[in-house]
């Protein structure tokens, strides 16, 4: 059984001109346990909305999202919050670290909403992403690459089954982007988490064996003007 199974998912927004705009219309999508998949799409194609729906941050207008055997639409908001805290790790383009918290505290904070604090594991995660010496540093004292590593450690803090990454390298230079992506993929593999990444960066997408253009699965998305392959698998 897939870890994530989506069917007939629809999400609309009211545009400023009061018209209804369907952003997400996904008839079918799935992700297996420990699978790593990339979705490609330009800005405004609904990538973030799609991830937010999977994370339970947004509620769909209709359709089904089944995560780890649980139907999201059947859950109350607090239950979705709980499911997100325990099952999903989220990596954002802008890292979204809390500036008043140290690296270690950012990771521990994520744990506090999940199964509970495990300081040893939090330290181990930060050591794994190469921040052994930066545990007590605040995000503002770190480079952007280091901040993204903290975000990776935080996303894995609750041993999630699924990691969602929204343009995780969008704010990094090429070298840091490549390293960050490698780290995310390795860390997910080591922790047994599936990875669903959305990006418009060809270099990033080229690293994945499985890439799906969002417009292929999302009837609500505008087709991207891209010469990327439209197949669902890339050569390794």
């Amino acid at each position, binding site marked *: 059984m897939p870890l994530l199974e989506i069917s007939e998912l629809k999400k609309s927004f009211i545009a400023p001109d009061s018209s209804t705009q369907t952003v997400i219309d996904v008839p079918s999508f799935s992700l297996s346990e420990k699978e790593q998949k990339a979705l490609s799409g330009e800005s405004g194609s609904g990538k973030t909305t799609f991830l937010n729906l999977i994370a339970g941050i947004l509620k769909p207008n209709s359709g089904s999202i089944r995560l780890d055997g649980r139907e999201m639409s059947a859950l109350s908001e607090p239950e979705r919050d709980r499911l997100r805290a*325990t099952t999903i790790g989220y990596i954002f383009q802008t890292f979204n670290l809390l500036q008043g918290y140290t690296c270690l505290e950012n990771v521990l904070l994520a744990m506090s909403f999940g199964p509970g604090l495990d300081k040893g594991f939090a330290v181990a995660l930060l050591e794994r992403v190469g921040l052994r010496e930066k545990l007590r540093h605040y995000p503002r004292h770190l480079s952007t690459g280091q901040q993204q590593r903290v975000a990776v450690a935080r996303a894995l803090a609750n041993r999630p089954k699924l990691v969602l990454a929204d343009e995780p390298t969008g704010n990094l230079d090429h070298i840091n982007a490549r390293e960050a992506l490698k780290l995310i993929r390795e860390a997910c593999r080591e922790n047994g988490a599936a990875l669903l990444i959305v990006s*418009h960066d060809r270099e990033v997408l080229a690293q994945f064996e499985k890439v799906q253009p969002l417009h292929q699965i999302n009837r609500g998305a505008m087709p991207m003007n891209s010469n990327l392959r439209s197949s669902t698998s890339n050569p390794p």
Partner: protein
Amino acid sequence: MSLWRIVFKSLRQHLLSTLVTALSIALAGGLLMSVWTVKEQSQAAFTGVTAGFDAVLGARGSKLQLVLNSIFHLEESPGNLPWSDFLDIQKNANVQVAIPIAVGDNYRGYRLIGVSTNLFFDVEYAPGRRYRVEPPGRPFDATLREAVVGSFAASRLGLKPGDKFHPYHGLIFDEKNQHSETYVVVGVMEPSNTPADRVIWIPLEGLQRMTGHDPRAAADISAVLVKLKAAIAGQQMDLLYNKQGDRLTFAWPIARIISQLFDKIAWFDRVLALVAYLVALVAAGSILASIYNSMNERRRDIAILRALGARRRTIFSTIVLEASCIAALGMLIAFVAYGAIIAVAAAVIRAQTGVVIEPLAFHTIMLWAPLSMIALSALAGIVPAVKAYQTNVAENLAPVS
């Protein structure tokens, strides 16, 4: 990481507004506690001060004025009474001790009280405590121009045994009204924490016969301080002097008469309390405003917390708890403000009346003022908490791709 830790982090992140708001709470709390305590303590202290007497006999007039003049050494004397009235009451079977006093002169603003020497031997101003003169001093000789200075007056005037001074006519100091007599200080009284500490005691006859005083009134006295054998006897004396007689006033019991003073100024207490309550409301409003105004910069943090799995009610509780913590911090500082205000108030009351209040005495206001302030602030915190509760996560996890 507990809710407390998240709140602590937020307070630290907004340190300046936290401190400013806490200080406004401190001011409100300090004021509230001070107003209440000064009122309660001074009322208790004043009504508890009898200087060892049950009643005062004086000229016909206000009982309150008579007590204020004779016991607290405030106000002017309502008038004189002849020596024979003292002899009459002294002989009354209900009277244990009767001490005549005369007022009308001062030394640099501190009143001179003419009194008989049995003040030092027959009166207990508190159970087991008599007015004593600090060694090596001694009580004055009633036939000489000698003085015993109250402890507070002595420290303020710098008088000590052996010093000499010229009294001034009247109750208000005026350099032009100096008497020619010279008095020698023969002793300083031990502190009694009563109004006796802030006057200068001289022989009764000395004050009566001071140059410039009306010789026709040389045998008159200002009042008689009375200690009854049994408190119940006061009713008989009240009947005798106040109901049957129409020439004299018998002020009894002293505590009840003083409490009338507080009844008269109760409106002032209410105004002060109202001001304190208003300040407390404004302070609670400042918590609301400071947190509410910071909501724009907090939205992203709130969205991040929610994206990490924090529930709406966790966010709500965090904001309410933060408001409560600011109030709690403010109330801690309020105790410092309270200490300062009450210390100044105690010093002023002592200087003006000789009555000592206990700044450190516990009062229930010290419990319910902080609790009320914290509760009020928590209530004020609900408004920004609702705003935080409603934060749209997706919209605030910018940028959107």
